[in-house]
């Protein structure tokens, strides 16, 4: 199975996210991450989807998305044509025995310490999803209290934008 990143420009109305995710559920598309937010224009919202599947299933996903009247354009993004990143907050138990190890790992991954209390610390880390996965794996040796990830956001490099993509 491959992972695909799709940026989808949709109308900024209530219920649009529901229409998109309802289609995913009905047709059983395997979505591993999804983010949605307003854009540079208040007419549009942008959905970034990480989809796991093969080329045929991905084509089907794109074709089905285009059938929704609220979808304006879709762009497939990858490592070479886009910049992607994710934000994560990790709350760890603040244990004197492991404090220095945590600190070293955080430094190596450029994680920022954003909260410090007697019992816990929170790190904020930004970057590729792979970097997040690796950092979590490292933290598993210690006591993770909770994790929150935003999911991927991606933008195409260079001057072209998703709004210039022809809806076909």
């Amino acid at each position: 199975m491959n992972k695909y990143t799709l940026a989808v420009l949709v109308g900024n109305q209530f219920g649009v996210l529901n229409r998109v995710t309802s289609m995913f559920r009905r047709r059983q598309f395997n979505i591993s991450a999804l983010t949605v937010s307003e854009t540079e224009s208040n007419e549009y919202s942008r959905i970034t989807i990480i989809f796991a599947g093969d080329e045929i299933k991905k084509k089907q996903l794109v074709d089905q998305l285009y059938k929704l009247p609220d979808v304006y354009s879709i762009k497939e993004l990858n490592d070479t044509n886009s910049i992607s990143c994710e934000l994560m907050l990790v709350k760890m138990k603040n244990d004197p025995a492991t404090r220095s190890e945590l600190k070293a790992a955080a430094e190596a991954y450029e994680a920022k310490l954003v909260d410090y209390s007697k019992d816990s610390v929170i790190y904020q880390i930004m970057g590729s999803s792979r970097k997040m996965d690796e950092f979590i794996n490292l933290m598993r040796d210690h006591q993770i209290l909770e994790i929150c990830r935003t999911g991927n956001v991606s933008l195409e490099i260079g001057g072209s934008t998703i709004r210039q993509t022809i809806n076909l």
Partner: protein
Amino acid sequence: MKLSGADIVIRTLIEQGCDTVFGYPGGQILNVYDSLYKYQNEINHILVAHEQGATHAADGYARTTGKVGVVIATSGPGATNLVTGIATAYLDSIPMVAITGNVPNSQIGTDSFQEIDITGITLPITKHNYFVGDVKDLQKTIREAFKLAKSGRPGPVLIDVPKDVQIATCEYTPLGEVATEEKTPAKEQRIVEAAECINAAKKPFIYFGGGVISSGAQEVMSELAEKIDAPIGCSMMGLSTLPTDNQRFLGMQGMHGRYSSSMSMHHADCIIALGVRFNDRVTGNREKFARNASIIHIDIDGSELSKTVNAVHGLRGDVKLTLQKLLPLLKKSKKEKWQQMVRKFRDEEAEYLDNRDGLTPRRAILTLNKYLGEGTAVATDVGQHQMWCAQNLEFKKPRKFVTSGGLGTMGFGLGAAIGSAFGTGERSVLVTGDGSFGMNLNELATAVKYNVPVVVLIFNNGVLGMVRQWQTLFYNKHYSNTVLERKTDFVALAKAFGADGAKAQNIDELDSVLKIAFETDGPFVIDCAIDKDEFVLPMLPPGGSMDDIIVKVGD
């Protein structure tokens, strides 16, 4: 000029060329019904017995006219009763607009009396749906709904209008009928590639569906068949597009398709699929489906291309416009060997044909054929009778076979036949089974009220025949809950509704009763006795391939 939301609904409908709507009033749609009263000289409202019947009637109206079928219902149960009818239209790509009332905006989300989230419920069975919270958006929304319903691959659209929006007023300027989206042919490069593939084919087969009707591509498709010397088959949704006596036409193929049509498709080296999808009832086992054929698939809906079977050439575009571009690129050729093979399949089919005398299902339909005019629409319900119709009815003009192909909705037929009669302005026919008819026979009341000339031919075998057939073949004859053992007297029932009817116990009786039925002014019900152990043949077992085809059943 300032108009109320309810008036805007009706005026906008009239502007869309809508002359007939089907529906049922109720508390939260009262204002729209008040406007229907006001505009009754410009728009005709047909009151049904149950909202489901209204959707099937609007659907039958749409299938026979090509126009958008319109249905109106109240909130809550009125709206939920539309669901099966909307889903039926969705699966068969029928243009429909459903308008529902809802509780006032201030009460939305509070579970008030007869409040239901119908936009949520119909999300996966509509092309799109709208909740109109503001009267200012009403005209624009209805126009958009009509545009969506009839553009591209047609389908149903629902508009939910809260009561306060029907009451509120706003400025209204008539804007006329909304245009459909412009149709476009497939990309030129794709057409060129497909032409090369067709020119190289020795055994081409044209397989088409309902998309050819919506696109109006039947003539150019016939030209294509002539030019490349190809036989033609279709899905059930394609039936009535070509006259049954067309020399190249082999009929429906698939699970209960005609033998020659299914065999020709199976042995083709190139399948040209037009406005059709490769549904499981068509392909059977997809691994074994037409293994030696390159599939060229032309459809206006890109998501259908390679959805279930891989198309070597997938062409997204309007079928008619694409074929018009494709045709000049094709070499005219004769394919004598292939035609010989097709003739052989036809001869074999003739041997398998059920030629028994007496009141057999096939004889019954052949008898019905004698009474069908060019303009007579035949609706069906779902089950064995539907397949016997698909195999044996004779069609002369497109849009005359009205059947639930995709969803397979039992109870579809009576509403659909009534809607068809309104659509064509002619007598319509419903062929049904006693099981299916039992589901929505309440619409007899509607047929009587409006004196709709509809001939209802019930194949009465006292069982749920199609399910029974499966139980016979695949479930060790365990007839679990398929024996009806009802004592319904359908003739007395027809009379109780104020219609007329008669029994037919043998083929001569059927003939004479049909004669009376087709001369009757208004609905006429025929209770036709059919043996419970009749089979629909041929049959491809579910998940089977042409190697597994059952053409005769041993004792």
